[in-house]
């Protein structure tokens, strides 16, 4: 990297300068890393301590044990719920990517002049309140909500027979999650498509490739990292989601994240089991992030 050699040359102008540059790094990183150490890494370690009973909500004698982990892995109930959340999240991520791809393709490759304005129009809803967008769907989907009363009003359905599956269902959760994340997902795909070298497409055309062939063999493979990043950008936050299911999910839309919240709630708190569930989710996501780290850098300038 050229900036680095320039910097080295500058530091070499005086010994004191070089020393200063070296000493400055702990000074710069001390605060941010210290903050994350105390308020991010340490808390996760405490969760781990709770998960093996090294710490406990109820005082009294207890010893380190893996029994909560064993119950979790063999009990089936929680893992079943985890699998259900994974499935819902997979469907949401897939649908959202499939919808966002053509949008990003249109913006990046159709040669429209106002592509950045249009991109902003697409993304703007994502930058507004999450809770309020969920609230909007509660208003729309309820038994006495906009859709049902509209149907009753125009006579499509009797007022006393609303489509009650609209709200408080798995469908409602997935619809709202897709709505919430759709604008965001177009961005990484757009960046990947923008970076596709247009001359490659011209070359394909010169060699008598049809547009479909050029898309399948040039554009699509080159944009795939953006697609993977987009997919993960939705999958990672939605698999542990609890706000949307608690507002529009009812019992059938109940997700793994809700279970974690309830285990730390006021009803029947079980912090040990809750910690196991939380840590398991964290490990799964850390592994996913580790495997796909290089895709997640799309559209960002990695600091190196």
């Amino acid at each position: 990297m050229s900036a680095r050699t320039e910097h080295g040359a500058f530091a070499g102008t005086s010994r004191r300068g070089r020393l200063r540059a070296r000493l400055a790094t702990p000074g710069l990183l001390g605060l941010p890393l210290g903050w994350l150490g105390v308020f991010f890494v340490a808390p996760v370690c405490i969760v781990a301590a709770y998960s093996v009973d090294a710490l406990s909500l109820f005082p009294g004698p207890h010893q380190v044990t893996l029994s909560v982990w064993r119950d979790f892995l063999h009990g089936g109930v929680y893992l079943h719920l985890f699998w259900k959340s994974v499935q819902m999240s997979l469907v949401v991520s897939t649908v959202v990517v499939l919808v966002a791809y053509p949008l990003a393709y249109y913006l990046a490759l159709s040669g429209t002049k106002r592509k950045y304005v249009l991109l902003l129009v697409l993304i703007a809803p994502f930058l507004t309140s999450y809770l309020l967008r969920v609230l909007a769907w509660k208003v729309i989907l309820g038994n006495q909500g906009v859709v049902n009363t509209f149907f009753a009003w125009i006579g499509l359905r009797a007022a006393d027979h609303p489509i009650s599956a609209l709200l408080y269902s798995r469908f409602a959760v997935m619809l709202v999650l897709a709505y919430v994340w759709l604008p965001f997902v177009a961005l990484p795909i757009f960046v990947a498509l923008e970076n596709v070298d247009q001359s490659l497409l011209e070359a394909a055309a010169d060699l008598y490739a049809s547009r479909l062939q050029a898309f399948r063999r040039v554009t699509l493979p080159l944009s795939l990292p953006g697609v993977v990043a987009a997919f993960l950008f939705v999958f990672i936050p939605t698999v542990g989601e609890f706000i949307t299911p608690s507002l529009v999910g009812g019992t059938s839309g109940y997700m793994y994240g809700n279970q974690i919240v309830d285990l730390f709630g006021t009803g029947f708190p079980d912090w040990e089991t809750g910690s196991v569930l939380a840590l398991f989710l964290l490990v799964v996501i850390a592994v996913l992030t580790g495997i796909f780290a290089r895709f997640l850098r799309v559209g960002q300038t990695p600091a190196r």
Partner: protein
Amino acid sequence: MDASLSKNGRRLLRGFFVLVVVFLYAPIAVLLIFSFNNAEVPAFPLSGFTLHWYREFAGNSELRGTLATSAIVAAVSSVGAVVLGVLASIALARRRFRGKALVSALLLSPLVIPYVVFGIALLLLFHTLGIPRSIVTVMIGHVVISLPYTILVLVPRLEQIDVALEEAAYDLGAGPAVTFRTVTLPLILPAIVSAFLIGFTTSFDEYAVASFVVGTRATFPIYLYSALRFPSQLPQVIAVAVVVLSVSLLVVLGAEIGRRRAERALGAA
């Protein structure tokens, strides 16, 4: 010939784009319409125009109090995140040190932690240390959440700036502090402003982590969430929603336009 799209393909995609934009904005429009509807329940048919809900919201001191609390939490936590973010970004963009990949991964890792996990982790930390929950504990959590966003905005900007400018300041005898204040800071100011705005909006809207560590003084999302369980407050909440959504849309658009202008001006200079 256009190698990527036929004429019909372009028309088809444009139609699809319009449809999706309608889908994205329709729920917001529904809120807007029903915020002016003269009925306790948001339902068809519409029953007349009223400003009643806006007046009620304006007179609801509890609600305004939570908005103020959220503004304070958002301001303090985003300033904190920006300060930490500037320090970290300078280290990442300007210094060589061992373990840089690891440090940068750690600094960005709050981006991928599920908020429910981070929320309970913070709860357990404060419980273990015996620290009572309050808006301060919410601020602490929000600094962690916003920090990676500020780094993602600041590092690319720092990398665009020619290092020679800073070297020149050093050569002319300026120390690190003076160099930063007179050279680096003015150049990254637009990025600092966007980092602040991102942190502010993130915190202002944050429910998941706050729900675990908030004390008796509620932030706006906490209030909103509990209000959603009382149907009688719904029309009022919808009116607030419209105000908050409009303001945040304006801020977002304004910030983006401002950033573009500032960067164009700096690029031309």
